[in-house]
């Protein structure tokens, strides 16, 4: 990254739109000034190659009203609850919000009214523990819009919320800082999709931050789909607080970006709560993908489940660090984590570090991690049924990846993702030795 000073002065001279966030931005900028760019010497950033980001020069994204065809990315289930951002700027003309349940809120920060300002001020930055995180502070220093979702007590969002973040060629070389605050009141229920799409092959840095607060008995399905440009950098962070009896299900899908990093944190702060943090990463070429998760059990009788699947081909490099943390009072915790990696090429690398930190004695926690190849016997079985070698392998990779996607409850999204998986499976098997 260019001299931080240059970026700082860019930020200082930038005219932001949202006045009420200026204190928040300025405070973050002050903290940002004293933070060093992460290197491989920092344990949290040990394996990811950040050199390309370090070398690049970034500017701040500017608004433009270019025509964008969003139809290929729209989800029919979410047709009445879609918010579209282009290069980080909200596009009223492309978005559509209709038929919201009574009392619910699905607004951008810019459209939020006075009472919601207070709401935002309380919650922004409250769940991500941004201390010393370069990219979170950068996001906070330049945040100028975002999405606020509020699901009132005992209310259900019938249709999923689709937050579409598109990046076009106009934003080449820019930093984009999407922000999302989701508040689910007691026994509320919703499905929220954050979708990051790059339209073309060019470089930019996308650093989304999301915070989710779930009250007692709330249910949330949360999908984050990353299909950025293959030259882009995507570094995202998510913090979720899960209260008593609440159920949080997060699915993170990474297909795109040259370098992507995802930090997911779920705090189980109420008894009997449950959390799922599943992930799927399909990479090839020279892609780098890093997923860090923290499942923090802070109360007794909670359950959590995690399945993280990865396929690596060519010179791609995948990193996984999954932490399960069980506090001393979190007795009767039942936590399971599984990380499976398929490494298809000799130039690819897989680094994985499943981690257990247990301070309570009456718990059941386990994790498993494997790195391997397609099962020869499975390939043989398919061949014995008349498929050729490549088709068999393609089918196996497809099936392997689909295990994560199958759990999604939005059919049209599933269809889009399956199509991508199928293309990927075809691509990576093409050059395999038959």
């Amino acid at each position, binding site marked *: 990254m260019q001299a931080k000073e240059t970026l700082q002065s860019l930020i200082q001279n930038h005219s932001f739109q949202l006045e009420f966030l200026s204190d928040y931005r300025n405070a973050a900028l002050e903290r940002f000034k004293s933070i060093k760019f992460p290197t491989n010497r920092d344990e949290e950033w040990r394996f990811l190659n950040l050199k390309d980001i370090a070398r690049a020069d970034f500017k701040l994204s500017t608004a433009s009203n270019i025509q964008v065809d969003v139809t290929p990315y729209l989800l029919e289930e979410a047709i009445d609850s879609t918010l579209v951002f282009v290069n980080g700027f909200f596009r009223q003309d492309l978005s559509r919000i209709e038929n919201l349940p009574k009392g619910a809120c699905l607004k951008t920060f810019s459209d939020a009214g006075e009472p919601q300002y207070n709401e935002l001020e309380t919650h922004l930055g409250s769940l991500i523990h941004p201390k010393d995180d370069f990219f979170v502070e950068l996001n906070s220093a330049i945040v100028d819009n975002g999405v606020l979702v509020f699901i009132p007590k005992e209310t259900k969002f019938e249709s999923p919320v689709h937050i579409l973040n598109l990046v076009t060629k106009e934003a080449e070389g820019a930093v984009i800082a999407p922000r999302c605050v989701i508040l689910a009141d007691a026994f509320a229920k919703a499905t929220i999709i954050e979708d990051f799409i790059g339209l073309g092959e060019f470089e930019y840095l996308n650093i989304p931050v999301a915070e989710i607060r779930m009250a007692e008995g709330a249910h949330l399905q949360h999908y984050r789909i990353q299909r950025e440009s293959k030259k882009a950098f995507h570094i995202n962070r998510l913090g979720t607080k899960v209260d008593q009896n609440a159920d949080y299900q997060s699915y993170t899908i990474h297909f795109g970006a040259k370098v992507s990093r995802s930090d997911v944190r779920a705090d189980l702060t109420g008894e009997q709560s449950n959390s799922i943090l599943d992930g799927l990463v399909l990479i090839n070429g020279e892609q780098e993908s890093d997923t860090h998760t923290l499942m923090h059990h802070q109360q007794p009788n909670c359950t959590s489940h995690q399945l993280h699947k990865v396929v690596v081909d060519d010179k791609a490099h995948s990193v996984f660090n999954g932490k399960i943390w069980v506090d001393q009072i979190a007795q009767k915790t039942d936590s399971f984590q599984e990380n499976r990696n398929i490494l298809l090429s000799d*130039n690819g690398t897989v680094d994985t*570090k499943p981690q257990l930190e247990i301070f309570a004695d009456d718990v059941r926690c386990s994790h498993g*991690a494997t790195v391997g190849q397609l099962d020869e016997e499975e390939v043989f079985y398919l061949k014995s049924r008349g498929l050729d070698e490549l088709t068999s392998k393609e089918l196996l990779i497809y099936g392997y990846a689909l295990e994560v996607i199958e759990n999604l409850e939005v059919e049209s999204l599933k269809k889009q993702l399956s199509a991508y998986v199928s293309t990927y499976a075809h691509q990576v098997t093409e050059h395999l030795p038959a």
Partner: protein
Amino acid sequence: MSDTQTIDKMVSQPYKYGFVTEIEYDEFPKGLNEDVVREIWKRRGEPEFMLEFRLKAYRNWLKMEEPMNWPNLDIKPIKYDEITYYSAPKIKKQLNSLDEVDPVLLETYEKLGIPLSEQKRLANVAVDAVFDSVSVATTFREKLKEAGVIFCSISEALKEYPELVQKYLGSVVPSNDNFFAALNSAVFSDGSFVFVPKGVKCPMELNTYFRINNEESGQFERTLIVAEEYASVSYLEGCTAPQFSTNLLHAAVVELVALDHADIKYSTVQNWYAGDEEGNGGIYNFVTKRGICKGDFAKISWTQVETGSAITWKYPSVILKGDNSIGEFYSVALTNKMQQADTGTKMIHLGKNTSSTIISKGISAGKSNNSYRGLVKIGPKATGSRNYSQCDSMLIGNNCGAHTFPYIQQQNSKSSIEHEATTSRVGEDQIFYLQQRGLSEEDAISMIINGFCKDVFAELPMEFAVEAQKLLGIKLEGSVG
């Protein structure tokens, strides 16, 4: 060899095991500088190359930073200036009978099932002629000599086989490897040297010898074991009996070298003083252990039972350089009271078709913290390699912690790594079942724990396996209920 012959031989050779060693009474300055390193070298009468080795290590050490901010370890600062880096051989006070020994110690021996003769030796009671450990040791020595195995202290080896030592010393753990290895290389006191020549299968487990001849080798122990082509050796260090030391810091280095088809098995039973209930006193056991499978089809196997020390910090590792070589790591680490253990292994796969197995069992009780920290790395050229790791933790009581930090890195598409870890507790239903069969609660727990550790104990030499089982029971006394 007939008895007469043995006796003759004994009589005719110079009496070298007694107390004729000249003892330096003069004061040795505290602290460390180049002069001290030179003085250590001079007093130990080592060959020229050792001075260079020690000085280089010392200079490296100066440049290194002491690792202070370790995750999960709470370490009080070590005052390196207050350590005396050269200790003249000490004579322990001889006791006349077991009656003079601390009854607590005797009770421990009793529970461990250590034979009477050995109890005396351990407590430093004068031993009667029949059980004279020296003569038994000599017989062993003869047997080893016949086979061509060199087994002696490293200072002896430096005098008698300087070329061998020079060739291998520091070849696996370079003197600039880490802070404590550098310190050890600069000032190491003594340790063992084992050399098994080509095609020789060591005629006895070296632990047998070791039990008889367990000398105090001081604070900075150095061990070097070399097995040539087709050679094999099994070595055990340590002892189940509690060991006390006045030194806070123990920084040992162990190096293993296995050539083609060689096989080295290294077992450790560690029961250093762990400090009191509040965590005062106790030993910092910072050990660098590493083996290299230099040749094809070589095999190195580490087995450890870690029950003592205030802080244990060790990662016995294997570099699998030769094709088809094998690395193994079996570990039981038990922590109680305020103990902290951070242990695990590194398996670095470089050769083709190499395989490694890691079985680690951690048991935490009291207010202790127990971490498994390991690395499995399969390099780009190590095709056809395999690793299987299993790290299980058991927690006893609600004030302790168990942690796993496995690093897994794979860089080719023809290898596979499997890692599994679980954390659990001793189940009430398990205890109930055993109690219902007539076992007391404590016995029941001891039995469950031993079942939990069975995979590791199976790798220990038999007599130690039995003692290690009992040791766990003793260590956990009073912590369950």
